[in-house]
């Protein structure tokens, strides 16, 4: 069994990785894992993922994430392997979260030693860099369990002491025995009051000091009142509150409230786990090229912009960078929502946190740390998760006067009932205080929106403000920009015109051989078209053999170079604008590039924008959802009309300046329309900001500058439809939650006021109502259909 698991554990990320990884692993690379691990042996490095162990002095407790684990049996194999290392004191591995805690003594071992033992068994141990946050959360969860268990155990025992008072007739039990039972109940209520209740009490106290009213205040008030009244009843039976005690009610409602809080905490941690997967992706060490050309392993913290690093298959990129050498496929799924492997070759850019799947690359680092797209995504997700949606703000605004009214009402009912039955009056007031806590009401909106934001993030849609989800559900008009939105950023060759005696493919080959040296989008389009045609004709080798030399690029004009073909004179070629090539300019709305040789004009290429293949499907799906669609673009009217027709939007307007777009948008809003704007996020800043909801598309957007509410990171239009559907679903669930919690408060307040609701039932009701709201919201955290499924769905609807 162990053997099987070890084999499974060695399975690499993908079949491609296996094929191409093998030949890449030269002797130089074979010893690098050891060097990589040895880096962790410096105390300042291991402190990043370890904490000093409290119980065993001198030992460290390290948090690691394991790769290659499949089941709980793997955890057992790993634990055995780690325990066998001398110096490892204890090991705890969770099969569910793939995380582990290892306590080890620096006198006997080092992290590299036990990590190597993990690798010998076919797994991989990565330092968990969020160890400190994780430890804090675990501590919090432990204390919560502990509070809850104290309340549970004491509640059961207090209930037993209370039973005789319910079951016996007056006089049947001696006063001394009764007093002893009360004393015992009081003793067991002490830990509940002074330990289990502290979160409620300290929150209430903090709010009081800040002169604010929050939901914990009435609850804490209820706890204190019940405890004080019962304590007086125990020790001063002749006092103003009589001999009645309520320790059983008290412990029980505290228990129910804590149960609710605890389950809430667990669910929140589960949602946080989805984001954590993104947050924990950077490698801990990189191989950097030294000045003498050799590679040296170093910690990621010492990486600087401009460094050249080598990235092996299976590793994550440490920073945003430019590929210098190599060709590979990368997995950007967690960052962009694009689930397919993407091809990257020299000249392409890779992003930090994405994974290199198949080939070895040399990457020049352009951004590190907070400047990377990865860090921006993480910051955005964190800031969005603490932003308060408008609807929650509204609830909070009403919650305050509501709470004041509740407290005054319970006070009034206590005063009203006092002359007849002081004990009953106090309990009615306490039940009122507890049952009306609008916890469910204030959880209703943020719980649902956070769950949705988490699900969207996993599909590559970033939500910048939670309240945008609310606006999105109300949208009735969608305005698209054209370039980069309905069309791709790339161009395709539409027409070729040539001088007499030159064939299309010849012209394209020559142009391509120059264009391959340039990264301009137009050049890339020409080169890929040349390759495509050559490949179709089976003469790719001949094309690759065409080499241009002395190539230089003149910004804003074009490329020039000398082409040498076997058996022919070297040709001086120019590729670029009509003026650069002294070519006749042609009419037409397409972008034109010309090719010229020493004797003048050779050929012209008309380049058209590529309409996104999914665009027309998306347009149709949106139209079916009852939205009116519109195209506003700064491009020429003819080109805009053509694209709009191709995707099936009737209402198109070209030649718009940003001011025009904004005016058109405001005109629509003045008619009462709710408008969503979809743009590339760069050129449409004011328009995006003016729209009710805005989407930025495309991977080129610097996230920190994007003005939009949503960022479609994968540059996939198809996800727009499911985002819209999910936002409508979210608002439906928010409304359900709000109705439910409002109805709950509306029925329970009169019941409590009439004295029909004992305090323990009030506590149960409150805990259940919050729980129901959170559970309902969790329905939204299921993942969106992935991009391929979405495309299939969109195409089906066509």
């Amino acid at each position, binding site marked *: 069994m162990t053997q099987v698991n070890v084999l499974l554990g060695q399975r690499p990320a993908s079949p491609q990785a296996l094929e191409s990884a093998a030949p890449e692993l030269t002797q130089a690379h074979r010893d690098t894992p050891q060097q990589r691990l040895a880096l962790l042996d410096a105390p300042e490095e291991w402190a990043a993922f370890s904490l000093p162990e409290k119980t065993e002095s001198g030992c460290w407790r390290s948090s690691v994430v394991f790769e290659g684990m499949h089941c*709980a049996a793997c955890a*057992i194999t790993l634990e055995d392997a780690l325990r066998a290392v001398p110096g490892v004191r204890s090991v705890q591995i969770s099969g569910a979260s793939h995380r582990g805690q290892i306590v080890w003594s620096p006198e006997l071992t080092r992290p590299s030693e036990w990590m190597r033992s993990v690798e010998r068994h076919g797994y991989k141990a990565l330092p968990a860099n969020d160890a400190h946050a994780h430890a804090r959360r675990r501590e919090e*969860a432990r204390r919560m369990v502990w509070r809850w*268990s104290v309340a549970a155990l004491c509640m059961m025992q207090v209930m037993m002491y209370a039973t005789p008072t319910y079951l016996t007739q007056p006089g049947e039990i001696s006063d001394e025995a009764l007093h*002893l039972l009360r004393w015992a109940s009081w003793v067991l209520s002490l830990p509940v009051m002074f330990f289990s209740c502290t979160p409620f009490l300290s929150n209430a106290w903090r709010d009081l000091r800040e002169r604010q009213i929050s939901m914990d205040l009435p609850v804490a008030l209820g706890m204190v009142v019940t405890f004080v009244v019962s304590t007086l009843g125990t020790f001063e039976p002749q006092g103003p509150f009589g001999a009645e005690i309520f320790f059983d009610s008290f412990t029980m409602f505290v228990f129910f409230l804590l149960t609710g809080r605890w389950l809430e905490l667990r669910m929140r941690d589960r949602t946080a786990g989805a984001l954590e997967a993104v947050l924990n992706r950077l490698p801990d060490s990189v191989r950097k090229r030294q000045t003498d050309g050799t590679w040296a392993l170093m910690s990621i913290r010492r990486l600087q912009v401009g460094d050249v690093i080598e990235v092996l298959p299976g590793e994550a990129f440490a920073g945003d960078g430019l590929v210098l050498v190599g060709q590979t496929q990368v997995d950007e799924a967690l960052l962009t929502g694009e689930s397919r492997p993407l091809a990257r070759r020299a000249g392409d850019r890779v992003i930090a946190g994405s994974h290199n799947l198949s080939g070895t690359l040399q990457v020049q680092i352009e951004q590190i740390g907070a400047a990377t797209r990865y860090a921006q995504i993480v910051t955005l997700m964190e800031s969005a998760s603490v932003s308060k949606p408008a609807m929650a703000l509204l609830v909070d605004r009403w919650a305050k006067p509501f709470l004041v009214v509740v407290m005054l009402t319970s006070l009034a009912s206590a005063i009203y009932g006092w002359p007849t039955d002081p004990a009953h009056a106090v309990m009615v007031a306490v039940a009122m205080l507890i049952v009306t806590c609008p916890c469910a009401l204030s959880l209703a909106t943020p719980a649902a929106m956070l769950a949705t934001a988490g699900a969207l993030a996993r599909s590559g849609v970033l939500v910048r403000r939670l309240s945008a989800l609310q606006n999105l559900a109300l949208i009735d008009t969608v305005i698209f920009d054209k370039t980069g939105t309905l069309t791709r950023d790339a161009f395709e060759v539409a027409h070729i015109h040539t001088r007499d005696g030159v064939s299309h493919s010849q012209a394209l080959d020559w142009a391509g051989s120059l264009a391959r040296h340039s990264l301009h989008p137009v050049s890339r389009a020409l080169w890929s078209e040349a390759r495509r045609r050559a490949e179709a004709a089976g003469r790719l080798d001949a094309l690759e053999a065409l080499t241009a030399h002395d190539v230089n690029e003149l910004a804003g004009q074009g490329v020039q170079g000398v082409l040498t073909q076997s058996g022919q004179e070297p040709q001086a070629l120019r590729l670029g604008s009509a003026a650069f090539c002294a070519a006749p300019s042609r009419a037409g709305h397409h972008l034109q590039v010309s090719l010229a040789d020493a004797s003048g004009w050779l050929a012209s290429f008309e380049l058209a924008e590529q309409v996104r293949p999914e665009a027309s499907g998306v347009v149709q799906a949106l139209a079916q959802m009852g939205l009116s669609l519109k195209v506003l673009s700064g491009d020429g009217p003819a080109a805009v009309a053509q694209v709009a027709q191709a995707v099936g939007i009737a209402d198109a307007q070209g030649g718009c300046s940003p001011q025009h777009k904004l005016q058109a948008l405001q005109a629509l809003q003045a008619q009462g329309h709710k408008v969503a704007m979809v743009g590339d996020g760069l050129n449409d800043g004011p328009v995006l900001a003016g729209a009710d909801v805005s989407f930025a598309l495309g991977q080129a957007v610097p996230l920190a500058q994007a003005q939009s509410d949503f960022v479609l990171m994968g540059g996939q239009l198809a996800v727009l439809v499911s985002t819209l559907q999910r936002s409508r679903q979210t608002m439906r669930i928010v409304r359900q939650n709000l109705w439910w919690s409002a109805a709950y408060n509306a029925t329970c307040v009169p019941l409590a006021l009439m004295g029909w609701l004992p305090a323990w039932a009030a506590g149960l009701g409150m805990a259940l109502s919050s729980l129901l709201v959170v559970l309902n919201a969790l329905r939204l955290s299921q993942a969106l259909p992935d991009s391929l499924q979405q495309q299939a769905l969109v195409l089906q609807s066509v």
Partner: protein
Amino acid sequence: MDILYLLIPLSVALVFFILAGLWWAIDRGQFEDIESEGERILRDD
């Protein structure tokens, strides 16, 4: 019924005793990973 005067304080003491045991268990992380302990029976040795 005099035995009550011994038994009731004793039961209170017992509760605190159990709580102490519970604290020990929670502090050692006994409740953090409930699933994999059950699968320990599947191990080979």
